[in-house]
């Protein structure tokens, strides 16, 4: 009888401890997420931080020329036999739609990149030669000259292994970079998603914004240059 009572008490206390601890730690982790983009907020004018349903912050503001910038964080756990990835997604939106095609490239594609725009583009393009595997696609509107220019930029951009995706569309540009990689121990044992940082460095966000601006500047002068080039 005593053994039964002692064992039952042990099980009850253990379950209670585990449950309480799990709930508390889950809440703490969600709270920790909310401050990840605080350091980057001063990079934008009129910046405002809101929170996604997964409690990752979304930073919205304007860059120097008044264009709207949106900075998001995406936790990606969708690929087996790979550590979880925290992606930094920077989107620069145009005030008006530009006359340019949609072209994008995705590094080391697995097919599971649900956050990617490239997978939804209809036409497959031959990617530039880089160390990483690249999937390059477009909407079929690009001229050979435009593809060549974009390929040259992608070649240098994807030389950095942290760049995951780069996209140019008439409505803006987007860059996705690796912000952090999940802790191996936590993931291997219980498939948990723990990123070993409490703030995304402002420098990292600044680099991503600069890359998005470079992408944007690439096809801006198309209206003037492209016809001359193609006529030649």
């Amino acid at each position, binding site marked *: 009888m005593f053994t039964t009572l002692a064992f039952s008490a042990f099980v009850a206390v253990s379950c209670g401890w585990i449950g309480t601890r799990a709930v508390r730690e889950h809440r703490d982790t969600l709270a920790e997420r909310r401050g990840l983009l605080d350091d980057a907020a001063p990079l934008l004018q009129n910046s405002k931080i809101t929170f996604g349903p997964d409690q990752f912050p979304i930073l919205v503001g304007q860059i120097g020329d008044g264009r709207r910038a949106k900075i998001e964080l995406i936790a990606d756990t969708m690929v087996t036999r790979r550590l979880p990835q925290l992606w930094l997604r920077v989107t620069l939106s145009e005030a008006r739609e530009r006359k340019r095609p949609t072209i994008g490239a995705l590094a080391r594609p697995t097919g599971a990149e649900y956050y990617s725009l490239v997978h939804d583009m209809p036409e*497959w393009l031959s990617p530039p030669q880089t160390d990483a595997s690249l999937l390059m696609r477009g909407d079929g509107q690009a001229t050979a000259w435009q593809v060549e220019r974009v390929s040259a930029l992608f070649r240098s951009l994807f030389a950095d292994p942290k760049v995951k995706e780069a996209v140019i569309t008439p409505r803006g540009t987007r860059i996705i970079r690796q912000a952090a990689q999940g802790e191996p121990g936590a993931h291997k044992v219980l*498939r948990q998603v723990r990123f070993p940082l409490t703030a995304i460095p402002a420098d990292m966000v600044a680099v991503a914004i600069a890359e998005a601006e470079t992408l944007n500047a690439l096809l801006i002068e198309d209206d003037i240059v492209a016809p001359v080039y193609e006529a030649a």
Partner: protein
Amino acid sequence: MANVTSTAAEPERLQLLRVLGPAHIWALGVGIVLVGEYMGWNFSVGKGGMIAGLIACWVAGLLYTCVAMIDSEVTSTVAAAGGQYAQAKHIVGPLMAFNVGLFLVMAYTMLEAANAITVGFLLDTVAGLQGHTGLNQQPFIILAIMFLAWLNYRGVLATLTFNLVITAIAFVSIITLFIAVQFGASNVPLDFSAITSDPLPYGWVGIVASLHFGLWYYLGIEGTCQAAEEVRSPARSLPYGTMAGIMTLLIAATMTWYVCSGLIPWEYLGQAGTPLFDAARVTGSTSLMVLLFVGTTFATLASANGCINDASRAWFSMGRDRYLPSWFGAVHPIYRTPYRAIVFLVPIALIFALGAPLDQVVTFSILSGLLGYTFMTFNMVMFRNKWPLDTIKRGYVHPFHPLPTIVLLILCSTAYFAVFLGYGTQLSAMMCFYIVASLWFHFRRYQFVRRGDQFTMPWPKPQGY
């Protein structure tokens, strides 16, 4: 100026929270496979006796060494993460990738079912010890699977400390039992007389028959070396990490065999649902029983949790690649989990957990794993033939090619024969399932696959094409 509405802003923050040493991570990597020590392996003793069980354990260690060598070379070269599934896409083709994806899903889902059965059996045993015989296991099996599926659906987080506690208890339980028995804490002395009196009760064929359950000790160890896709770890850490894990498991497996075979008659051990817990019961020590109860529970639940995660991700990837209806490739808008894949696989796990005995479920899981290892043999040959060593840069080149491939193929063939000896019907049923699934993929599903997206590596054209 910035209009920050965050409520979590703090003046100073530590950028790196925790730093784990290599040994730490190595131990954690082994943790997920540790469940193999707690249940399933002992059916090898039932098939061939005590000696056969030990030989099966060591031969399976050799098989996994070959797996580690081969897998490391391909993984360190095929940069895309995703393991064997991604390798099949790049080296063989969509039909093979579809099958490898199914192997993964089935192996993990069956392992999840086996874990749930063990939890139910363990609770039944403990209830019986407390005087409540005849406990209905089914509600606990359903509860375990549904609860873990819910955790995965929600993407619930836990701390590293919490993870470490669970793994440490599972590890320490085995070592404590071993030491306690060595120092005379057991009421029953270790008895190995059956080794001399009845060494091979079914002859040499018993050793062959026991081989496939020997795989259970290590099943999935190759998955513990994960590709850090974007900024990869040194390529040599892949084979060394896996082989260090295999050596650890080899020692743990031998210790487990030693304690269990010494305390429990092999005829009973060969059919036990929870051999380590049963060994603790034989010692008569309440503390050891509680420790092994907790160790078994944690090991099985942690393993089942990992299985749900991995199986659903593999199913999700196949949906995204359109190998399966793309409906399965959806991500939950709030929790960012592959929720449709998780929910879809729950009834499959339940059917097997509630409708099949543990040894058969374990066999189904082992068979799917075995098919994956067989794929690795001809995948390796094709890889070396299509892209010889001087044509593409490899992170790691395994030595003595093609010896490990040949050894692996021989061991896999022997394991198939072992399955045929004891579970011929299950072997035939599973082969039929994969053949029918392949026909469906070839004649119906393949038209939806985006063929241009399948091969993305910047490699030269393969030789012979």
